[in-house]
């Protein structure tokens, strides 16, 4: 549905986006991650046709955004990063304008406004002027504008920015639900959001894609992925270490702890990923009769992967 080929954007001598390529199919929710200034918003601006790319091209539903912009833009709903809305209009007036721009008339327009104000919880502010809205409501108003024509493609730049925890949850649910039969690209700095609603995530750094995969695949890149954590009480650290090191598939054991608690982390020789190491640890624990209150296999943490990919030097020195 969306094909991005070798997208490049230069501002003067500065390359903000440097050769980004990917495709997204219907039914996919693609998360854009990356540090500030990585080029996420710039990429989205080129996808939505706001900025012409310096090189490369974007196809949306088969339409080249540079060559047939109107046909391409028709398919897209866009929430820009700053969530702009005309301050001199009421929320209802603004949504009505957006609907009219999208070619909705009469009853269809009224119905569309009712639908999106329900989805974005705007019923109580419909008659309020946009410039008196709180930040979160303004954000939701702009999001509603992006949904007004029930587009096949949604490009959302930080859709949960400035929302309260309940609204963040609602928007994630909305993205997940709509993602089943649309194409959604959204950027975020909240990594749980990626795990919660993306079917795929792309990490961008300094204008380039540095990782592309499902959240699970990305997490597996963590150096802790597949390791097992155990916490026991009333046992000496050295005993724990020697007993655990005796397990055949263990590569390395690290032990720490205080106040009579011992935490051990076991790294497997090969990552099998079916909880076999945890099973072996559990056997040792029962055999020795240790009291334990924690035993689990690490899936790897996205924030750690994110840090190690985008800031390799500092990430190493911290772990």
């Amino acid at each position, binding site marked *: 549905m969306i094909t991005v080929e070798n997208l490049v*954007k230069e*501002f003067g001598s500065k390359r903000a986006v440097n050769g980004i390529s990917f495709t997204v199919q219907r039914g996919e929710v693609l998360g854009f991650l990356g540090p500030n200034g990585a080029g996420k918003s710039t990429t989205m*601006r080129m996808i*939505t*046709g*706001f*900025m*012409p790319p310096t090189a490369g091209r974007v196809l949306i539903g088969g339409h080249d955004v540079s060559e047939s*912009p*109107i*046909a391409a*833009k*028709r398919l*897209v709903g*866009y929430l*820009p990063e*700053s969530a*702009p*809305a*005309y*301050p*001199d*209009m009421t929320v209802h*007036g603004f949504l009505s*304008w*957006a609907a*009219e*721009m*999208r*070619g909705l008339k009469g009853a269809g327009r009224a119905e569309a406004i009712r639908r999106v104000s329900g989805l974005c919880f705007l019923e109580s502010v419909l008659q309020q002027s946009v410039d008196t809205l709180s930040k979160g409501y303004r954000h939701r108003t*702009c999001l509603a*504008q992006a949904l007004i024509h029930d587009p096949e493609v949604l490009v959302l730049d930080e859709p949960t920015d400035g929302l309260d925890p309940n609204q963040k949850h609602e928007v994630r649910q909305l993205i997940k639900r709509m993602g089943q039969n649309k194409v959604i690209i959204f950027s975020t700095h909240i990594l749980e959001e990626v795990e919660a609603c993306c079917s795929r995530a792309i990490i961008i750094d300094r204008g380039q894609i540095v990782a592309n995969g499902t959240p699970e695949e990305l997490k597996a890149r963590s150096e802790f992925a597949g390791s097992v954590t155990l916490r026991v009480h009333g046992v000496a650290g050295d005993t724990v270490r020697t007993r655990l090191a005796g397990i055949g598939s263990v590569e390395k054991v690290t032990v720490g702890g205080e106040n009579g608690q011992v935490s051990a982390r076991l790294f497997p020789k090969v990552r099998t990923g079916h909880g076999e190491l945890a099973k072996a640890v559990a056997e040792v624990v029962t055999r020795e009769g240790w009291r334990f209150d924690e035993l689990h296999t690490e899936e790897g943490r996205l924030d750690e992967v994110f840090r190690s990919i985008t800031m390799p030097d500092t990430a190493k020195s911290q772990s």
Partner: protein
Amino acid sequence: MNDALRHVWTIAKRELGGYFNSPVAYVFIVIFLLLNGFFTFMLGYFFERGQASLAEPFFSWHPWLYLFLVPAVGMRLWAEERRSGTLELLLTMPIAPWQAIVAKFLASWIFLGIALALTFPIVITTAYLGDPDRGTVIGGYIGSFLLAGAYLGITEMVSAITRNQIIAFIISVVICFLMILCGWEPVTNLLVTWAPERVVDLVKGLSTWYHYLAFQRGVVDFRDLLYFASVIGMSLFATGVVLRGVRGA
């Protein structure tokens, strides 16, 4: 084509609503009418003249009135969209940029037209006091409206250059002022003393003042119409070029 007109209308309607939803529009119209009255009846020596002609006392002030009032109306057209980020919204709608450019121009021009139309009591006064030549009145109004359009086109173009309305206002006033000056008699008289006649004619030909004068005499000449149409057309075209630059082409 139908789609294009619908888009132009949708955007223009929003812009017009923007004017009339705020008190600024009414304040503007009142100021415009008061200044017109003041210039016509006080400075124009309307009564002392003893002749109920509209051309001199009423229309001749318009280039100077518009010099400030038109940039005040048009300065926000694009500067405000850029400042508030709504430009990104507008230009990712399924429309061609020229539709937005024309729509904004039309909305402001209609607004100026309404303000101009509201000066009709002045016309009625002259008709009551004397018997003004109908041709000069109609010609004067046409010329005045076109003059406002020319200034407005320039203001719209300047407004796209900056996100600061005040800067847009000042630059527009300066450009419009130069366009009056190059055909204003005191300046052309000065020019004649050293420049060849052909240059003087050329400079005069570029001036809004020079082309506006003909309308005041009730003469609607094709060349003058063409002049105003091309000033408007070229500034709207230039607006498109500037906007393309703004989007980072």
